[in-house]
């Protein structure tokens, strides 16, 4: 078995009385796309900041690319690439100046840097002038240049903290295409995101709530864990009054009943009784059997706190 790219055991981060990360244990292999999913403040960013060497953990073992905090956080920093959720390039500098600056900070020698830069420009299909100011680029392109900046020193492990926040859907697709390519090249990619359709593309996902990982599995595995019984989609034949929604959500037949766009997703408390229960809803809803989505998992696990 190959050595894990990232190995975390019992990671704890406290700010005073507040425990931001509470005994997190996770192991990620090279070439994996690993997602962190959780509400705001669940501890995703804090965990990632520790793994990038930006934050010293209160306790716990952390090994990133073979380096640990005992080797100094700069040993970790040299192993990883990090793209934070805020846009981090300098708007008043050109693309070239931004990348030069990072290359200087990472002490890349000139030939290596220039070769690497060209590779990355090819990788992100950057077709504009390297001397254009970052502020003149579109949001999607900026994001890709940001990714290139994080990859400049050819790290084996990349952390992307909400990389697609505020980016148009077409650019998001393109960005995920790049992420998959990275994983195919054997790089380990950590991603946090609020877009659950994006999370479906992760190999495995850690669901976080209040600083704890409540489940780690593939998207399908998570769906099976949280919805072991069939899930149905209820499509109202006529718009549903708000009061009626409340009574449905509290209906004894359902263990789960949540809006999903204009429709509803439901799971039963006792699946064996479905044939008896079903007729009373069929006059108001078109009911189909579906696979649960990650959004269902997220609502059930993170928001409803199951």
């Amino acid at each position, binding site marked *: 078995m190959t050595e894990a790219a990232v190995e975390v055991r019992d990671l704890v981060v406290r700010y005073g009385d507040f425990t931001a990360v509470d005994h997190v244990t996770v192991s990620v292999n090279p070439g994996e796309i690993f997602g962190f999913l959780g509400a705001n403040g669940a501890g995703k960013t804090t965990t990632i900041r520790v793994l990038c060497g*930006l934050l*010293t953990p209160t306790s716990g073992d952390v090994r990133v690319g073979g380096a640990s905090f005992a080797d100094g956080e700069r040993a970790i*920093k040299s192993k990883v*690439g990090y793209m934070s959720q*805020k846009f981090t*390039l*300098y708007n*008043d500098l050109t693309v070239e100046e931004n990348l030069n600056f990072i290359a200087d*900070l990472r002490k890349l020698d000139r030939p290596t840097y220039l070769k690497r830069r060209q590779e990355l420009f090819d990788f992100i299909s950057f077709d504009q002038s390297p001397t254009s100011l970052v502020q003149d680029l579109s949001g999607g392109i900026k994001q890709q240049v940001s990714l290139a900046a994080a990859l400049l020193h050819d790290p084996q492990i990349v952390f992307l903290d909400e990389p697609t926040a505020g980016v148009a859907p077409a650019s998001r697709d393109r960005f995920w295409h790049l992420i998959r390519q990275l994983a195919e090249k054997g790089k380990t990619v950590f991603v946090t995101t609020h877009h659950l359709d994006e999370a479906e593309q992760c190999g495995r996902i850690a669901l976080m709530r209040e600083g704890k990982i409540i489940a780690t599995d593939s998207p399908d595995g998570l769906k099976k864990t949280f919805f072991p019984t069939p899930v149905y989609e209820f499509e109202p034949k006529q718009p549903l009054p708000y009061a009626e929604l409340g009574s449905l959500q509290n209906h004894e037949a359902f263990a789960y009943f949540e809006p999903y766009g204009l429709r509803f997703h439901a799971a039963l408390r006792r699946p064996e009784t479905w044939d008896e229960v079903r007729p009373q809803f069929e006059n108001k809803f078109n009911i189909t059997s579906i696979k649960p989505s990650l959004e269902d998992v997220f609502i059930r696990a993170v928001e409803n706190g199951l």
Partner: protein
Amino acid sequence: MTFPFVWSRAMAVAKKEVFHILRDPFTLALALGLPVMMVIVYGVAIDFNIENVALAVSDSDQTQTSRRLVDTFDSSHYFLVHHAVSPAAASQDVVAERAKAALIIPPRFEKDLLDGRGGSAQILLDGADSSVVGPVSGYVSGIQTIASKRIGNFSPTPPYELRSRFLFNPELNSRWFVIPGLTVVVMAILSILLTSLTIAREWENGSMELLLSTPVQPLEIIVGKLTPYAALGIIAQAFVYGIARTIFGVPFVGNLAVLALGCGLCLATYLAQGIFISVTARNQQVAMQMAMLSGMLPTNLLSGFIFPVASMPLFFRILTVIFPARWFIAIARGTFLKGSSLLQLGGPFLALTLLCSGMMLAATRRFKRDLEP
């Protein structure tokens, strides 16, 4: 495990900072335009010498003696005399601010003098404008001395005479006094304001995360960030010095190296203060206000630049001790006008050194605590 300080990284930060400065018209304009503007405002527009004070004269005596007294006021270039019809009109002129002072000579002024009873005339001063009262009452007593000599026949000659000679600035030219101090004001604005903005800006737009995710060290960031601003500060200083010497003809009798040393110390203190603010504020708006409040305000008001430290209330006099400007102004004036040596300026230099190292220590510690994981 410790990592060595790497110059090339610090210089990479410095280079990037130069790009920022070059692309930001506000910074450039502030750095180059401000010294010019300050020198013009303080050197040309503001004249602390009080001249041409409007004086309303009511001469009810109308004798040779009284006219000679009025003439003495008139011929000194301090007063601009105009005649009022009555004592009441003269004092009304002061009330209506047509005059800053009034001279009222009673009837029988000459006769009283001749009779040996001693003549008396009245001076009314506009006490609402305290900046005028001090100098003008000084002029009045000077003129009185001259006048009693000119009217000497009638009054006993005083047995002694006080003659003042002003050392170091014989003409009491306020520009000589103000412009050396101006260097510190320019320095305060440039260094504190610009540096306090520079790191706050990194926090604000999230690029601090990018910096921190690389192996760059806090000290490398500080050195890199400060280098361009230190250079700007030094250029501005040289600029003010040049203008002071050439355009305003301020003499420089001291040792230039001593001035430069003081300048460097003061600059370093201000840069450290800027960094400290920047790290604490993390936001350009707040940083700017803190820079104004903690830097520019005391530099202007509590340094002796305009208001002499010695005439401040005790509390403020003690408070000035913590402002580098107070010490640097002492050094600047000492070297420009008096030619004081390093030894004579030992006190200010010691104080500046202490302030500088204290501020540096505080800034670096604060910065490290914030940045190191």
